[in-house]
């Protein structure tokens, strides 16, 4: 990890960077903001860890917890909303047994996320499954895609 963090630090120093650019690099590298990374930078730069967390919790791009293997992002823009995004989101959370306040399943296979607008309103409702866009998606089709993924991911972790 240390080597990767050094690289991020160099990038920050060369590009008049700031806390946000560091966190963006960390998020991209690890998929979330590990505590170790924050502490490392905090020591190196003599900036309190609380400032890193202050920024990390303010912006939606940053995740304090690691995400699941599969990320399902439901677009909840206005057009998707009037075309049933909420039902999709509720159904999805139910299918994955997510309790209120939870976004990732216990087995870390799935994370459910939402985005304010994907910019593809003519295809509403839109869901992104691992960044691939599914337009005019129905609850039924989404549920099937999740089952397929569940089988695939299950197979891989067993193997």
């Amino acid at each position: 990890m240390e080597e990767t963090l050094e690289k991020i630090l160099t990038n920050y120093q060369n590009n008049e960077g700031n806390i946000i650019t560091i966190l963006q690099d960390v998020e991209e590298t690890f998929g979330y903001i590990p505590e170790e990374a924050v502490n490392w930078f905090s020591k190196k730069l003599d900036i309190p860890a609380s400032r890193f967390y202050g920024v990390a919790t303010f912006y939606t791009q940053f995740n304090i917890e690691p995400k699941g293997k599969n990320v399902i992002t439901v677009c909840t823009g206005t057009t998707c909303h009037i075309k049933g995004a909420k039902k999709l989101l509720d159904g999805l959370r139910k299918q994955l047994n997510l309790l209120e306040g939870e976004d990732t399943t216990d087995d870390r296979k799935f994370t459910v996320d939402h985005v304010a607008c994907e910019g593809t309103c003519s295809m509403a409702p839109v869901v992104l499954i691992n960044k691939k866009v599914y337009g005019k998606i129905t609850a039924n089709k989404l549920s099937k895609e999740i089952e397929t993924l569940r089988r695939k991911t299950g197979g891989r972790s067993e193997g």
Partner: protein
Amino acid sequence: MKGDVKIKVCMGPSGIALGGAEVIEAFKKEINTAGIKALVGDQCSLHKVGCRGLCTKDILVEVTINGKKTIYENIKPDKVSKIVKEHIVKGNPVKGWTAGKEYHNFHNKQIRVVLSNCGEIDPEDIHSYTAVGGYEAARKALVSMSPEEIVEVVKGSKLRGRGGAGFPTGLKWELGLKIKSDVKYVICNGDEGDPGAFMDRAVMEGDPHSVIEGMIICAKATNSHQGYIYVRAEYPLSVKRLQTAIDQCYEKGFLGKNIFGTGFNFDLKIFQGAGAFVCGEATALARSIEGKRGMPTPKMWRSAERGLRDKPTVLNNVETFANVPKIILKGADWYSSLGTERSGGTKVFSLTGKVKNSGLIEVPLGISLREIIYDIGGGIEGGREFKAVQTGGPSGGVIPAEFLDIEVDYESLALVGSIMGSGGMVVLDETDCMVDISQFFLEFTQSESCGKCIPCRIGTKRMFEILEGITSGRGREGDIELLEELGHYLRTTSLCGLGMTAPNPVLSTIKYFRGEYESHIKNKRCAAGVCSNLS
């Protein structure tokens, strides 16, 4: 078939999502295997272009043979082979696949200024932009115009801020020019965060150079030498295409030191926003570039006086900058004549919702809502009844049928209780519940409130809870009045625009659809059938 063959495949947000890249691959393959390469040689060019507007019919493909254009709609990779064999080889366009009446109606009432290159040029190639007159305006501004002259032209064009507030751009630049400072900044706000809006994304991805060129002209007009483009990290393609465009500009000498040999210097960088709606607000955006939590500060000064790092900062939105090169080349009179008395030019809207033809449109200001929704948009989907159109997203309101004939500009939309906003236009029909729409927007503003000032932090939360109660059958007598009262306080006491405008969706729906609220509360009935706990 001999001759000059050009194929353009829409790679706007929808085009990409539907598999535009595969369509391009299929064309490449078919053209090769059909041996057309030998016939047309290197005259056959194929490129990806930005958004072509009519997203409903994506993927749109334009085939031009010896100057004769044919538009195909709803193209999938498996349809490519037939187009190549019948049209490109034999010269007979494939019947039934070409764009119909709707495509032409969609375009007839539009005037494309900002979007004139979107869908026409390759956004990743600077030569494609310079071939259509790109960077001529920047050259003119830098070589032969003084900052004062540029400011006069922009003032005369009546261009106003396209981010939503509508502040006259020329006045802002004049303020930026007059202030003396060793360092000044030019910032482009590409933090498009309204749900239901994708105008800026289409411009940044379809014609990134026009934004950069507008910024170079602004830098000259305000005597600034450093600029930032603030883009949402959620728009990775925008970031990539802008970065490519910036790199190409440095290579060509359009950015950096001694631009066009005039001795003028301007450096430009991208700053990736990390996702916070409030960062569209000028002071919050500046804090974010400084690496802090993007919380607004009280506006004692205009950004043009004191903005980023406490230095004078001219901040404009993507669409505003993209208009500037055209204004410099074609003149203030040409641009102002396109719009109304008070607002010059055109505005880009993302027309979506329950409308037949949804997509990205650009219309002259002063056009009526009816023309937009019925002529361009083709009317309501499924022959249902029009109910209202929502403009301005979470800061805007709904406009009912009785106002369909008002002229679209900043003042007239404000007069009926909505705002122009950045350009989201969502059409609602009889199956949409107005209380649900209010709740939807309040849920958004409530979660995006930065929490700094109490009216916004607590006010949006309480308003949301009341609305949630009404839509789930727990509405009480007096709720409507309470919403109005809270809305009034938010409007008058919030620190920034987010809180001040957050009540708009609620207040405007109460104003025009009060009966719907009452029926939810008293009869526990949702006529549109959206609120599932009610009858």
